[in-house]
């Protein structure tokens, strides 16, 4: 018995030693050479059915548990989702509004860059309800550097000029105000005239244009820069109707403002450019950027 036990003991010891060395060699090989990968993948393939079979009940109960849980949760979840949908709808509308505003501001910015003059943006905060006084109140005043007579434009063209100045706000008088008169010229024929407001927000009148002058409906009217308010070349209006009366020295020319004045939201204030007269400004701006 003792002898047998001893030999068995020593045999186990020897095989343990051999196998441990084998294991160590295998570990070394696995960490340094690629060929153990083949053994690994072959054994893994062999083990796959076992792993699959053992984990099947676990996964199955897991799946069932999940299903049952979801079944009881479905109502609550539905409510949650609907609430989320409502919130998202609101958010979407806000985003839509923001996108439109963004577009508008981007167009404004483009216009400002084209003019190559310092501009400041302002929002319209109030509008005069009086049909014969087309004035708007904007969110920039003396504190922000606004001044009376400052030209106001939008992405599509001339809007008006600052008339009354307050510390935090300013009033602008639109081109369509009956008291407004802006020197313009017909962009194709360079005929000069005065663009006057009519009290109608969609209609302007071009005055002091000789009956013989070359003005046609559809002609573009741009600011001439003569009044000292607007720089030269800003779009102001488009001629819609020309009536020539032989008995009158002047043609009756009706025009539509380039800017939809009743649908304005943001405007740009053109900053002063010192030491140059306004007509010069636009031309200089084209050559040398500030």
């Amino acid at each position, binding site marked *: 018995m003792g002898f047998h036990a001893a030999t068995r003991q020593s045999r*186990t*010891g020897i095989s*343990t030693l051999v196998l441990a060395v084998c294991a160590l060699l295998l570990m070394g*090989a696995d960490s340094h050479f690629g060929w153990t990968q083949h053994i690994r993948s072959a054994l*893994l393939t062999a083990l796959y059915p076992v792993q699959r079979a053992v984990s099947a009940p676990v996964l199955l109960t897991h799946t069932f548990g999940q299903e049952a849980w979801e079944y009881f949760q479905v109502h609550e979840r539905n409510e949650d989702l609907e609430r989320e949908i409502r919130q998202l709808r609101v958010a979407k509308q806000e985003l839509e509004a923001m996108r439109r505003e963004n577009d508008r501001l981007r167009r404004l910015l483009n216009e400002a860059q084209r003019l190559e003059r310092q501009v400041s943006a302002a929002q319209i905060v109030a509008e005069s309800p009086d049909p014969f006084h087309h004035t708007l109140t904007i969110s920039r005043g003396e504190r922000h550097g606004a001044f009376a007579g400052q030209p106001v434009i939008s992405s599509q063209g001339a809007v008006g000029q600052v008339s009354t100045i307050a510390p935090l706000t300013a009033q602008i008088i639109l081109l369509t105000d009956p008291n407004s008169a802006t020197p313009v010229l017909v962009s194709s024929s360079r005929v000069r005239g005065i663009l006057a407001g009519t009290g109608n927000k969609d209609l302007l009148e071009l005055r002091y244009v000789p009956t013989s002058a070359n003005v046609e409906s559809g002609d573009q009217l741009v600011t001439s820069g003569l009044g000292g308010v607007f720089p030269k070349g800003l779009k102001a209006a488009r001629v819609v109707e020309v009536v020539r009366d032989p008995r009158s020295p002047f043609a009756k020319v009706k025009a539509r403002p380039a800017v939809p004045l009743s649908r304005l939201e943001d405007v740009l204030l053109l900053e002063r450019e010192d030491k140059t007269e306004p007509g010069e400004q636009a031309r200089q701006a084209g050559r040398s950027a500030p």
Partner: protein
Amino acid sequence: MSWTGHVVVALSVLIALGLGSIPLAEPASYLWPDWVLLTLAYWSLAAPQRYGVGVAFLTGILQDVAIGTLLGLHALIYVLIVYVLIANHLRIRMLHLGAQTLVILVLALVSLLLQLWVEGPNQDLMVNLWALVPAMTTALFWSPVFLLLRSLRQHFAIA
């Protein structure tokens, strides 16, 4: 005995291998015992002449493949543990289950420390107290595994 015995032992080892590689959530994986160690420990104590270090080596290789450790790491660990168990199997068999649990605890701790020692530098494995928790659960599972496998062994008259 011959055939059914081998089949039962092989099946128990395979199931242990499968259990060891079940995908688990983080907290459960810390508590998951080393089923293969328990199974090998039982069979090497119950039938040391039949299921010895060779079986431990092959099972260890399979365990390395199954859980993706360095090939040979678990082979080495199981061979050493089974050697200790076989060398002392007469003494350990005499102990009651509580004392056997302590023996298994020590062996499982050795196993974990060997794993940490080998893999620590390779895979940023944090050596903290949590890493030793599986040794406790492995030890705690010794009694149920022992009772289950003993009933199997008696039922199939193995060894």
